[in-house]
């Protein structure tokens, strides 16, 4: 299963500037692990040392927060889009 992952501006330095990338995986956790294989360093920006989603980063499957689905075990289907949205503070 390949999904498009939208990369937020703060993490694009890790994806060589790409605003979206295509990644294989059946669950969000697998997608993030596969992202890490291709773009080293990205996982620790999204997940903490206990492999949980960081509290200031949200991941959306289409437009739904995965915390209200099955968190990192949320299953991915063909045509789904994943967005990573971190807290930003500039004004």
């Amino acid at each position, binding site marked *: 299963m390949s999904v498009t992952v*939208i990369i*937020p*501006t*703060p993490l694009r330095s890790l994806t060589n500037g790409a*605003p979206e990338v295509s990644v294989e995986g059946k669950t969000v956790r697998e997608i993030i692990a596969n992202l890490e294989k291709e773009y080293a360093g990205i996982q620790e920006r999204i997940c903490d040392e206990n492999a949980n989603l*960081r*509290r*200031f980063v*949200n991941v*959306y499957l289409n*437009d*739904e*927060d995965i915390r*209200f689905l099955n968190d990192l075990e949320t299953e991915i289907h063909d045509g789904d889009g994943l*967005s990573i*949205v*971190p*807290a*930003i*503070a*500039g*004004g």
Partner: protein
Amino acid sequence: MFDFTEDEIKRYSRHILLPEVGGAGQKKIREARVLLVGGGGLGAPVGYYLAAAGVGKIGIVDGDHVELSNLQRQVVHSMADLGKNKAVSAKETLQALNPAVEVMTYTERLTSKNILGILKDYDMVVDGSDNFPTRYLVNDACVLTGKPLSYGAVFRFTGQVMTIVPGEGPCYRCLFREPPPPGMTATCEEAGVLGVLPGVIGLLQATEVLKLILKKGNLLQGRMLNYEALEMEFQTIKVRKDPGCPVCGENPTITELVDYEEFCRVNF
């Protein structure tokens, strides 16, 4: 019938023509009291357009001074304002545009100690601050006092907007429970921001403020708008009220304001 002067009728005629605004709506705008947290990138367009729209009372809180590097985006300040307090500089610009608007300036940094005293004179709040401690402070104060809050934030080419109506929808902590550790995210000062970006986001916030005043349309409540300027993409994502939210959840643990500098440090 709304005791407008001839000049007011002319000035606001394009509003009054709108059935959704009309004379009654324009009167609501004139009676509204809006507090802007920050007179910078976001506060500048919000303040300027709300003054133009005829918002009766606008408060601006900002402890910073105008620097040359601000002028790339903070359009209420100009060369003559360098070194001035931003709230004071913004007030001059707003009143030159619309002398009928009462502009209050608060030239200190917003803290747990002074926020409630300032907030009590306003109906709603616009968060245009530039740091996480102030954002959590403003959110908690608005939730605890029941004041609607327009959240907006920018970073490089990305902007976020959400409208928070305490008691009805999710708050900022429902969206982001905790701030990032210091050093994990860069500020605009360190990472840059496209000058027009806070203009776009600020005017989306100003739109929401007018809708809140007029009680018209659908607010960005329970959803956040994420704007990517480089891709020119607007994405709306769902934000749910978190039953475990520490300030607006079912069993809140935050029932009074805390030390937010400390809160943003000790989490990590």
